[in-house]
């Protein structure tokens, strides 16, 4: 073996391991499943925007709520009968609000991890070399825009409350309807996911250094921190619940699901 001194250039080298990873487990499985899981949400979302069966009394599809369009929202679907978007708008009502819950999930700290890993392979898994030659992180446009996550959180709070209102309204009008309870379950998961957000944790009291001076905020932070520990499962559960609830309402609206307590 060649002897070198501490100053030798070779001493400044990493181990010249020629493979991307020496991991022997199925490290590719999680990013692969994540890729298909998130892709299914994107594909469903595109279909839900095109599909017009958004309302069957008393259910409104979560992807279209709040329904703000005067023309394309069926009677009874509008929130408090309010339609701020006038007759000129004839496209899907879901398009009007898509950016808010979509942006919330797109900039979510958990989803960032999942799509950076599964879509951008940066990195695909821990200790697996990424394929990119250069990396600048979230320091430049467009990824620096991830920093507006908290504004999407504010919007998500409003959307979550509206979905809860829709669900309660459905239960009031049709307490024995399966759809009412599907909407309730969805509203609970959506709001739990929203409240478990890292920005929410920061806003409640995470930004403080003296919890003892703000006991109420500290208690809120403690509660949100417990939820925050479940942010990943809540992200998946709420994603599938909103897809499931939305699909259910549309199938009922189309008459495909038509049993008495649907």
């Amino acid at each position, binding site marked *: 073996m060649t002897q070198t001194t501490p100053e030798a250039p070779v001493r400044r080298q990493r181990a010249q391991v020629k493979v991307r990873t020496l991991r022997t487990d199925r490290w590719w499985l999680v990013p692969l499943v994540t890729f298909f899981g998130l892709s299914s949400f994107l594909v469903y979302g595109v279909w839900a925007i095109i599909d017009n069966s958004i309302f069957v009394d008393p259910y409104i599809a979560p992807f279209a709520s709040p329904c703000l369009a005067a023309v394309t929202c069926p009677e009874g679907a509008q929130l408090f009968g309010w339609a701020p978007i006038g007759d000129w708008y004839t496209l899907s009502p879901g398009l009007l609000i898509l950016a808010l819950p979509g942006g919330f999930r797109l900039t979510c700290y958990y989803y960032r991890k999942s799509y950076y890993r599964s879509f951008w392979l940066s990195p695909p898994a821990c*200790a697996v070399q990424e394929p990119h030659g250069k990396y600048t992180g979230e320091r430049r446009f467009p990824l620096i825009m991830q920093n507006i996550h908290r504004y999407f959180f504010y919007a998500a709070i409003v959307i979550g409350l509206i979905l809860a209102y829709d669900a309660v309204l459905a239960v009031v009008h049709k307490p024995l309807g399966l759809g009412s309870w599907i909407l309730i379950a969805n509203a609970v998961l959506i709001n739990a996911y929203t409240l478990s957000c890292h920005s929410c944790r920061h806003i409640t009291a995470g930004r403080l250094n003296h919890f003892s001076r703000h006991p109420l905020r500290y208690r809120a932070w403690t509660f949100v921190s417990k939820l925050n520990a479940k942010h990943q499962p809540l992200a998946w559960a709420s994603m599938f619940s909103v897809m499931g609830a939305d699909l259910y309402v549309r199938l009922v609206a189309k008459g495909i699901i038509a049993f008495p307590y649907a």
Partner: protein
Amino acid sequence: MSYKAKFKVWRGEGGEGKLEDFTVEVNEGEVVLDIIHRLQATQAPDLAVRWNCKAGKCGSCSMEINGKPRLGCMTRMSTFEEDETITVTPMRTFPVIKDLVTDVSYNYQKAREVPSFTPPSGVKPGEYRMKQVDVERSQEFRKCIECFMCNNVCHVIRDHEENKTNFSGPRFLMRIAELDMHPYDVADRQDAAQEEHGLGYCNITKCCTEVCPEHIKITDNALIPMKERVVDRKYDPLVWLGNKIFKRSSSNSK
């Protein structure tokens, strides 16, 4: 019960080297570091490995076992199949001195670049009075044993050597978060975290948390809260406006 295990161990000085094959005895209850020591005792007396406590508390025996950053002394042989070939390599992010021993001075350099705890000017040592709830959040970060596996696994520098100049790695961003959350620290850490220590490079893929042998929630409890504090400082116009109106400026007022 004993059996013979197949090992591939990185041998070489500097970055040059290769994986060498060994067949070595394994006994019940042993860990990977025990096997490395048996290799030293029986087949490769010049095999270099850094170790100390053998109890997962000194952070010396960081290495990569079957490609995953692990502590050699905390990786039980019983977690592998008897017919499995176990590959042991040095940490990939740092230069190799010899065999499994890496030069981790990058970490000491970055540690020196973080300004130390800075109390208010009027408060002397011995006069600090803090409530437990105010300090327990940052006490989690004090569990760090400085094994540097979080910095080793972080793809920002693991896959991009050129980023080492501008990125301090999760270990020292966590140190900055610890100080920024400290009720008696008055130094301005937030601008420095983003501009000098490269917090913006972090894309929160959580590998640092996955490999931490002390199970510190580095990403959720240090890096993301620090990113949110940086957003307060640099990217949120409402917080900026609120600070102007209510004349909040120093971290001590929070």
